[in-house]
C-alpha cells in the first residue's frame, strides 16, 4: 500500500449513494465455473456499475517443495465481482459472483455465511465444473437454484435428464436463462426468492 493523502480516492457516483435510511443489507451469491456468465449476470441486474473486491491469499509452500525453505509462499489475488439492487429505502440487496472451483472455496467462509441463497450458473458444455459446487452448497445447507445459460452450440438436455445428471432433488428449481438480459437474470433471482419463500413456509410453525 503506498498511500498519499493527496491521492484522490474514487468513490461512488452521485447517483450511487445509498440513502441515509439504508439500515440493512442482504446478499445472494452467484457461483459457477470460468466464463459461465457470473460477471454478466451481476452486471445485468445491478443498479451500480459492477465493482470488484479482492482478497490476497498466500499458498504456503509446506510440503510442496522445500528447496526454497519451508516459508516460500505464492501470493494469489482473487477477485469477486458484485453489484447492488436497492430494495426499499431501508433494505439493499448485494449480488456476489464467485468462482466455483474448489481452490477458491477459501473465499466462501465470509461469503455464504448469512447469504439468503445462491444461484448456480451452469454451462452445459462443461457441467462438471458445477458438480462440486452443488455438493458443497448441500453440505453447507445453503439453499440454491440452478440456472442454465443457453450458450450458442451448447448441448441442450431435457430438464429431466439434467436434473438426474446433477442428482438434484425434485424441489430444487432448474431454469434456463440468458445472463446478458436483465429481465432473464431478474427472473432467475425471482425463482430463487420463490424457492426460499416456499422453504420458509414449509418450516414455519403452524
Amino acid at each position, binding site marked *: 500500500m503506498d498511500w498519499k493523502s493527496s491521492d484522490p480516492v474514487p468513490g*461512488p457516483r452521485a447517483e450511487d449513494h445509498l440513502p441515509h435510511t439504508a439500515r440493512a443489507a442482504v446478499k445472494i451469491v452467484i457461483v459457477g465455473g470460468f466464463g459461465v456468465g457470473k460477471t454478466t449476470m451481476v452486471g445485468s441486474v445491478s443498479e451500480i456499475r459492477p465493482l470488484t473486491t479482492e482478497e490476497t491469499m498466500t499458498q504456503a509452500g509446506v510440503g510442496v517443495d522445500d528447496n526454497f525453505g519451508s516459508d516460500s509462499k505464492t501470493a494469489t489475488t482473487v477477485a469477486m465481482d458484485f453489484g447492488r439492487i436497492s430494495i*426499499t429505502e431501508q*433494505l439493499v440487496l448485494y449480488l456476489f459472483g464467485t468462482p466455483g472451483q474448489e481452490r477458491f472455496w477459501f473465499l466462501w467462509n465470509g461469503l455464504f455465511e448469512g*447469504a439468503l441463497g445462491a444461484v448456480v450458473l451452469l454451462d452445459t458444455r462443461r457441467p462438471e465444473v458445477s458438480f462440486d459446487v452443488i*455438493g458443497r452448497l448441500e453440505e453447507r445447507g445453503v439453499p440454491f437454484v440452478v440456472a442454465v445459460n443457453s450458450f450458442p452450440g451448447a448441448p441442450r438436455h431435457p430438464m429431466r435428464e439434467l436434473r438426474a445428471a446433477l442428482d438434484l432433488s425434485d424441489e430444487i428449481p432448474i431454469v434456463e436463462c440468458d445472463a446478458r438480459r436483465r429481465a432473464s437474470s431478474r427472473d432467475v433471482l425471482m425463482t430463487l426468492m420463490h424457492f426460499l419463500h416456499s422453504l420458509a413456509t414449509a418450516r414455519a*410453525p403452524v
Partner: protein
Amino acid sequence: MTPPRRRRRDPEQQPPPGPAPAGPGGKEGEQRQPERLYILTGATDGGERASIDLVTLIVACADPQPTATPEQSALLRLCRSPLSVAEISAYLSLPFSVVTLLLTDLLAAELVQARAPVVRKATPDRSLLEAVMHGLEKL
C-alpha cells in the same frame, strides 16, 4: 447425448483433509479450509472481525481528523453516506481483510457506525423475502 453425471461426495470424507489455517484465531468453520491457504492479515485475534460482513453497511460518524491515517481519512470520506464493506474494499482497492482491520479500529474509536446485515436463519423471515421479491419485481 446424455450429460455427464454428478457423483455425490461421501459425507464421511468431509471435510477434505488439509492442515489448519496458519495463524491463531481461526474460528470453528475456518478450520475446514480445503487448501493450504490463509488470509494474509488474518493473524489477528479474530474477535471483532467476525462481526464485519461483506455487506455490513458502514456510516461515518465524523469527518476525518488530521491525526487520521490516509486510509482512515479516505474511508471516512467514502462513508459520509452508508456504504457496504464490499464497496469500501472496491473503491479503496484494499482487500476485504485489510478493510476489516481498518474498520475494527474505526469502530473502536466510534468514528464509524456499522449496520449489521440481515442473515439467513433456519426459519427465514417471510416478510423479508417478500420485500426482496417486491423490490425485484420493480426492476
